[in-house]
């Protein structure tokens, strides 16, 4: 189990590349976040025609460090297998952008950043639980401001998995004229009751940690590391399939071949504990609460009079929907719903279910069919760009 971590997280002292919008952003909840700060990374070069920009949307616990060593964890970028020179999202051809989501904790406006008042004046304390609730649509609006700043009128493509896929769908629904093609991966138009239920366990674990202090843990110089680690451990199980867990760990013990009911530890336990404790080094508990809520709120149909098809009526966007056969968090049935709604809207859509036993996490892993699909789709789209 994760030890209590002092508030001096490894993230302190790291400067993220950011852009500040003093006018702020009007949120779905009615509040105006002022100023709006968006932390981001770009790779490759925007061409003169400004026609080669690709936006990558990260998942719940991802961030903008897609294709480079992470400044906090020193680990490889989270999608280095997909994004880079000669890879499906080829940084020698495309100008690739990724922003830390609104509400995140890698430099964008979020609970860990300094609180501001309605006039944008700093309040000398972090937002914490006072950070306004945000939606997936708010995240997308913040990204749109970043694109304006970068001088990108229209995206050649936008792609992402899981919560990143929700943003992809929202991009296509909200700014169809700014998106030429969209690749929502392992995602859905809404969070199911089961998805919400798993998130609620994580939130309750954070709330129950005595170090949480009602979200004002910074006042006490601690972080709710145990609660956040449990949240991560629960979530991590939902990202894997039973097959993947069995293949990786089976019933193996760390201590030896015999079960003795004392301090035995199954390998899967120690793996989860490692996942939990390393997570709290880089992630903020209030951000976790904010972003999981944004995912739970997401309901594309509700935003469009109860119909997903209405969200995409006459859409010019070309879609490539991708799911994984062993993903039980965002199962193929959810992707098929997206596809049916797109068909009902007579949209141009490709749909592939990739056979994999790696569960939801497959979109981050070495899946050759995923790479073939993405690069083929992008190549086909490039032929048709107008």
């Amino acid at each position, binding site marked *: 189990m994760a030890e209590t971590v002092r508030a001096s997280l490894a993230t302190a002292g790291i400067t993220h590349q950011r852009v500040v919008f003093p006018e702020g952003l009007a949120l779905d909840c009615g509040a105006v976040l002022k100023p709006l700060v968006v932390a981001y990374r770009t790779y490759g070069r925007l*061409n*003169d*025609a400004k*026609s*080669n920009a690709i936006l990558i949307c990260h998942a719940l616990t991802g961030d903008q460090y897609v294709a480079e060593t992470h400044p906090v964890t020193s680990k490889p970028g989270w999608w280095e297998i997909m994004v880079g020179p000669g890879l499906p999202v080829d940084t020698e*051809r*495309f100008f690739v952008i990724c922003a830390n989501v609104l509400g995140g904790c890698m430099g964008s406006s979020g609970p860990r950043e300094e609180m501001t008042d309605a006039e944008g004046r700093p309040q000398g304390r972090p937002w914490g639980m006072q950070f306004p609730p945000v939606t997936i649509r708010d995240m997308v609006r913040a990204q749109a401001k970043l694109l304006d700043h970068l001088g990108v009128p229209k995206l*050649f493509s936008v792609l992402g998995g899981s919560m990143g896929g929700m943003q992809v769908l929202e991009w296509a629904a909200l700014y169809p004229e700014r998106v030429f093609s969209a690749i929502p991966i392992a995602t859905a138009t809404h969070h199911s009751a089961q998805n919400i239920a798993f998130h609620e366990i994580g939130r309750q674990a954070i709330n129950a940690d005595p170090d949480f202090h009602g979200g004002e843990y910074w006042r006490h110089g601690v972080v709710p590391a145990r609660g956040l680690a449990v949240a991560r451990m629960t979530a991590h199980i939902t990202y894997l399939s039973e097959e993947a867990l069995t293949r990786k760990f089976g019933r193996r013990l760390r201590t030896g071949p015999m079960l003795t009911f004392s301090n035995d530890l199954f390998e899967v336990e120690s793996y989860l504990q490692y996942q939990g404790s390393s997570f709290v080094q880089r992630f903020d508990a209030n951000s976790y609460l904010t972003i999981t809520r944004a995912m739970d709120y997401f309901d594309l149909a509700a935003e469009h009079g109860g119909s997903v098809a209405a969200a995409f009526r006459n859409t010019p966007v*070309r879609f*490539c*929907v991708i799911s994984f056969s062993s993903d039980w968090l965002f199962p193929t049935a959810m992707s098929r719903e997206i*596809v*049916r709604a797109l*068909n*009902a*809207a*007579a949209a*141009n*859509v*490709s*749909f*592939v*279910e*990739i*056979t994999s036993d790696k569960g939801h996490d497959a979109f981050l892993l070495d899946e050759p*069919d995923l790479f*073939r*699909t993405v*690069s*083929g*789709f992008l*190549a*086909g*789209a*490039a*032929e048709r*760009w107008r």
Partner: protein
Amino acid sequence: MPEGLAPAPRTGRPLSDRLDLRLIAEMVEPRARVLDIGCGDGALLDILVHEKDVDGRGIEIDMALVTAAVAHGLPVIHADADTDLAFYPDAAFDYVILSRTLQATERPREVLAQMLRIGRRAIVSFPNFGHWQVRARLLLTGRMPRTKALDRAWYDTPNIHLCTISDFFALCEADGYRVERWLGVDEAGRKTPWRRNRRLANLFAEQGLFLLTRG
């Protein structure tokens, strides 16, 4: 084309040389909206998209073929013709194509009706069970006929709703579809010379190829 983006080149040859696909492609107006049902690896779509500049889509039930088609840059979805056509709006396409797939559907009559609901025209090709070799084999051997077009044993064939060219004319009449054009085709996809005569075509054509509209 985005500057700096190499186009997805269809380098050299199209995916397929099949003549029957060429015959179908000849029936399609340039720049039309087309849905190809049972599109396989996208061989026909590849011709239509690259040579006729159509806005083409495909559906295919075999996931490996879907992946191949999408990886080739073609807009294809994994779906089942028997159940998923219902999700398309009326008149969404200029042409809906069903090439050598009708006989493998669960409910061919319903599939045809859906095709002519979502498309203004339907193009259908199927193996002709009235071909003389089929008739001769059943007559002479008393066994289920196996030909080049129908080369699987009765117990493992996907072809569960076989028909003759005459049967198909009868269904079109019963359901009120107008046959705009039709062709008898041999297995290689060449037009057969007796294509103007229904009875001869029903005996000598290995495939029937039809262009239908709602009556």
